């Protein structure tokens, strides 16, 4: 079987969940090889990649690779595409992942499909576009097919792989080294999962009414070990930081469970969450379009319903 390259998403040497999802998908397409770019590869990372079936791990571990944004990943992948002739390249559909895939496509004269939610054995990708209202099947017709795959689209399944380490040496291209990272600033993150990766997202919208009102949203999120999201109305009003906006001009999420509180469900918001597997809605207005998406919904005041739900979850925990 031919090789499928999977670009590892990691932070400080810890492999992110989406990489297990991508390796699971890669196993249905060929033999998965993980690609590690930057310093920090160690036993924990190797174990995490072996757990999801990586046969090989290409390690481009030069510490300087972390000093430049995005492009080192494209340089390493381009090198491996030319050396190994894989049948496909899978990259997580994050901001960095999509840019790395885009540069790789230019570099290798290959087609790229972004935001896939599935890729079949014959390399046809499924995308959910226009806020999930349309399902598109696409294929790459030139070069090595490159897919970026949305987090939470594939259920990760463990399968032991050898994770044989192969060190690779790649010279960064001249343009890659032109942009230099000179500082990193971590946002304050009260221990919640990242929005894009979270299995559960609890969101608040106009109905939350104020920055203080988000306390009840955060309370429910913490009871469920969930990420907090916000609609554009809430971020525009300054009630919640902009980086948590879910929607057409914010992040797209596809969690197992999405709980929308006080959100009407304009296309702007639906575009960012419509593909969530299970959707729960709390809203005062029974006419709100968000109810059309709900698997379970309560017409009511979120300040009554949400704290009660949080308390009930704590009781059952």
């Amino acid at each position, binding site marked *: 079987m031919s090789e499928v390259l999977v670009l590892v998403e990691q932070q400080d040497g810890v492999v992110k969940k989406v990489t297990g999802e991508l390796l699971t998908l890669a196993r249905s397409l060929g033999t998965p090889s993980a690609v590690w770019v930057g310093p920090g590869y160690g036993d924990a990372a190797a174990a995490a990649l072996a757990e999801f079936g990586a046969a090989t791990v290409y390690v481009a571990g030069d510490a300087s690779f972390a000093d430049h944004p995005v492009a080192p990943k494209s340089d390493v992948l381009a090198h491996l595409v030319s050396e190994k002739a894989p049948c496909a390249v899978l990259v997580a559909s994050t901001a960095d992942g999509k840019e790395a895939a885009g540069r790789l496509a230019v*570099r290798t004269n290959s087609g790229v499909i972004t935001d896939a939610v599935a890729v079949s054995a014959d390399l046809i990708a499924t995308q959910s576009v226009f806020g999930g209202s349309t399902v598109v*099947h696409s294929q790459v017709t*030139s070069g090595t097919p490159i897919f970026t795959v949305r987090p939470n689209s594939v259920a990760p399944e463990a399968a032991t792989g050898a994770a044989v380490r192969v060190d690779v040496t790649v010279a960064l291209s001249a343009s890659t080294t032109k942009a230099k990272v000179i500082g990193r600033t971590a946002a304050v993150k009260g221990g919640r999962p990242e929005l894009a990766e979270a299995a559960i997202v609890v969101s608040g919208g106009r109905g939350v009414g104020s920055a203080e009102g988000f306390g009840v949203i955060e309370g429910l999120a913490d009871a469920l070990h969930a990420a907090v999201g916000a609609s554009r109305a809430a971020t525009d009003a300054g009630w919640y930081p*902009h980086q948590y906006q879910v929607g*057409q001009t914010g992040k797209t999420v596809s969690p197992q469970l999405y709980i929308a509180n006080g959100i009407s469900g304009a*296309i702007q918001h639906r575009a960012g969450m419509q593909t969530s597997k299970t959707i729960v809605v709390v809203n005062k207005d029974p006419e709100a379009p968000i109810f059309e998406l709900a698997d*379970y919904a309560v017409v009511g005041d979120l300040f009554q319903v949400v704290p009660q739900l949080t308390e009930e979850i704590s009781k059952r925990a």
Partner: protein
Amino acid sequence: MKIAVCVKQVPDTWAEKQLKASDSTLDRESADGVMNELDEYAVEEALRLVEASGGDVTIVTMGPERAAETVRKALSMGADSGVHLVDAGFHGSDALATSYALAEVIKDRGFDLVIFGSESTDARMSVVPAMVAERLGVAQLTFAQKVEVSGSDVTIERVTESGFDTVTATTPVVLSVVEKINEPRYPSFKGIMAAKKKPVETLSIADAGLDAAKLGASAAWSSVVDFAARPPKAAGVVTTDEGDGGVKIAQFLADQKFI
């Protein structure tokens, strides 16, 4: 400082969008065309940089004839001139072809900065700025929530999953900016009147010296196999809160094994 801002006309953000059955491309006629909202931040940032340290702003777009409206809007905000790539042969171009056309038009004009919005609200691929940087062989400073220019040094705060990275390069650079980097201005009446007299070059594929074989649907390196409207979701359970709404949701979550 000579700045290019690449903008795209897209269907209104708030409109429902669909694909055309004939060629699987976006139906651009069924909704009003507006400047991609995220590009407004790019135009605003360019205007602010020029107001602070001098220079001029050129708007570059590729799109059908009516995309000229989007160029005019940017000019009415205060940009100086426009370049509009318009040709039937562009129709159906993928991101790779778009980045090729933009890079070719940009490369010989001596821009210090090329600024994009972080993504378009229709295709939402978010790859064209990186592709243009790759093609031009210049530094990529994308997803900026803050831009500082000092002489030929450009430093940005690049938004990441966990916060932001401070990234620096010397001109020329390709920038993309995220929403909330600034508050885009509305065109003034004076600006709208002035925009009518500002120069806009309209270039066909041949005018721009582009290779037609690399453009349009036939040159795309990916293609749509088929598409369909998502089947409507089976109606869920909707109940009205009678003092036990939270308990009911908890029961639903327990039944679904979330708790």
